[in-house]
């Protein structure tokens, strides 16, 4: 066991190395590239075994990843944003192949306009593809989640690929202290991959990804994926507890911070939740009974865990770092659906906030304001209208940019 400073990208690479991955089909994209560069370096120097192949696109990369995983080797890959969407067709396809691999997504906002900084629209676009999703808030979690993800993907009750998400820049390029576990300890937690009956072998021919005619066969196989994904919730809990026993770090499906005795909650995912945690601690200092709930698992959606965590609370602010135009925040929608399905008991007033798009900061004062809004909403019992976080000062800044753009546009014009 070594304690060292690692970026989120470095932690992801360490996770892959400790998992003794066999194969990495790769394609560069900011802010993910450091992961594949790190692995390529280790493979070149012999620090780890494995083969890394740079493909011609993320679509090809995901295809090769799925094909190799269904040939029975342990596969790792990483992408971001536009790359994840470029490979989207194959995310659905290889989930249907039940290819048990791990794919890192380093979150980055989607074009247009094109940007490099993070939000969660990229990874949530892959929400329905059949990959399971683990969302990380710290670099340590990134490393640990890669190991947990392989156990989950390869579990015979699950057999589905897993996406591990970390936020671009805020985690990918930020150094944090990370405990790198010993290889022997990891080997005991994560034994070699046994592909069982999913493998191409001359002696045992297999057809994979074949067409079906008629909705019954199609429905059957899609339902199988859903049932396996739902089962993955229990399996995840088992694995996370075993991980905690072995390594002393607990990564529950839903992280709760001062949530038990809270009357109010903030709910959000990813690294910005660490900002929310800080705000919760300051508000607690001021006497407000508030807490934070952060789902680590997004697929399967830990609805029971969340219902449990939210039951009896007065007000909940759901902060979405994503935007479904014409609908709003995706986590808010999913959480509202989960709450509507539970046992009838007092459920909190939900307030929806959109923020942190394209890497925009969410400041402490904004968390305090959100807390104020939910306290007020709880008092009236009426959920407030969804809010898009944007300050007057930001608006002034954007107006300035627009003025510059207009002026720049005019310089080339002919004038009478």
């Amino acid at each position: 066991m070594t304690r060292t400073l690692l970026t989120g990208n470095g932690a992801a690479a360490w996770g892959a190395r400790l998992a003794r991955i066999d194969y990495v089909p790769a394609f560069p994209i900011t802010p993910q590239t450091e992961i594949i560069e790190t692995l390529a370096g280790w493979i070149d120097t012999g620090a780890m075994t494995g083969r890394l192949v740079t493909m011609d696109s993320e679509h090809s990369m995901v295809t090769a990843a799925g094909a190799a995983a269904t040939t029975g080797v342990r596969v790792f890959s990483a992408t971001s944003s536009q790359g994840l969407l470029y490979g989207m067709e194959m995310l659905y396809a290889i989930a249907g192949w039940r290819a048990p691999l791990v794919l890192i997504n380093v979150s980055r906002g989607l074009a247009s306009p094109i940007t490099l900084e993070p939000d969660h629209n990229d990874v949530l676009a892959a929400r329905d593809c059949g990959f399971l999703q683990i969302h990380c808030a710290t670099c340590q979690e990134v490393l640990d989640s890669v190991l947990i993800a392989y156990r989950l993907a390869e579990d015979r009750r699950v057999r589905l690929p897993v996406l591990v998400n970390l936020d671009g820049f805020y985690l990918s390029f930020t150094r944090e202290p990370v405990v790198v576990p010993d290889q022997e300890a990891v080997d005991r937690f994560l034994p070699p991959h046994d592909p069982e009956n999913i493998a191409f072998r001359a002696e045992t021919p297999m057809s994979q990804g074949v067409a079906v005619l008629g909705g019954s066969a199609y429905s059957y196989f899609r339902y199988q994926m859903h049932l396996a994904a739902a089962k993955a919730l229990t399996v995840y809990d088992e694995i996370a507890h075993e991980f905690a026993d072995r390594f002393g770090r607990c990564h529950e499906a839903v992280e709760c911070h001062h949530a038990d005795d809270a009357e109010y909650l903030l709910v959000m995912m990813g690294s910005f939740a660490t900002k929310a945690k800080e705000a919760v601690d300051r508000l607690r200092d001021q006497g407000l009974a508030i807490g934070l709930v952060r789902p680590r698992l997004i697929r399967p959606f830990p609805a029971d865990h969340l219902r449990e965590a939210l039951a009896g609370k007065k007000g909940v602010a759901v902060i979405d770092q994503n935007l479904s135009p014409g609908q709003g925040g995706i986590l808010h929608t999913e959480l509202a659906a989960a709450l509507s399905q539970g046992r009838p008991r007092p459920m909190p007033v939900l307030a929806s906030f959109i923020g942190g798009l394209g890497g925009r900061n969410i400041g402490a004062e904004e968390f305090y304001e959100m807390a104020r809004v939910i306290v007020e909403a709880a008092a009236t019992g009426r959920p407030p209208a969804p809010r898009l976080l944007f300050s007057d000062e930001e608006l002034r800044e954007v107006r300035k940019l627009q003025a510059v753009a207009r002026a720049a546009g005019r310089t080339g014009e002919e004038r009478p």
Partner: protein
Amino acid sequence: MSGIKNMRDLPASHLLAGGTPMCAGCGGLEALHQVYDLLGEKTVFVNAAGCMTLLAVYPFTPFRGSWLYTAMASAPAGAQGVRDALDILRSKGRIEPADDLQVVVLTGDGSAYGMGLAATSGAMDRRLDFLYLCYDNEGYGNTGQQYSSATPHGARTATSQGSRGYPGYKKDLFAIWAAHRPAYVATVSAAHPVDLATKIETARGLQGPRLIIALSPCPTGWDFDPAETVAIGKLAVECGVWPLKEYRDGRVRHSRIPKARRPVAEYLARQGRFHHLFKPRRQEGLLTEIQARVDAYWAGVAKNEGQEG
């Protein structure tokens, strides 16, 4: 290299099962039959979206070996994943040599000439050890024969119904593939089984990317009687429309140079997709242009390969 000299040297037993949903007289299926008999069952066919995606419909497959359907754009990338994984398993002693497979990409022209071209280019760059069989029926056949970039000039398709047919020209995929300097590229025709078998045997003896384009007369898309498939395939070669050739070690060699080429109109007139060139009136200008392009091609061949035997 090849021990195949005539029809008697071809495999006597056939591996690909019948009863597939391919159309009667499918020229692509005929090519696949012949190729599969030569390659054998220790193969995994990595397929892209196209007519032959319907070969394996759950729970049936005509293959004795393995099959992987990928997507329209990325069959060569699927081949990369399988090949790399098998190599890794071999090198680590996790599978027996007897469990290894030949990796064969199987796509139509829509994928090969268009959507899958980047993935194929990448596979060639990476010197992937695989065989690529493109069944070229000169259009998006599975969706009802819309024009693709493999469609010949003047052909009527579902999306080129005008009196002059398809305005574009068939893309020279052979040259594009050969420009990557892979181990082997060849054109074949199932109507010329000895030539086809010789080329597949040559390809089998090589390592690296080996790519084959099989002209695949398509009764449904080209509009002719299914009984005519072989005759149309022969005419394509005898009229000089489909040159049989191979690329190897930086050089292109024609495996068959028709001595007295028959007029292209003979080939065109047998297919409904070219009827508008003859009726209601003969479009001499267009026919002359098509013939002139074929003549120019062979004039170039005579110049480049004239001295060769």
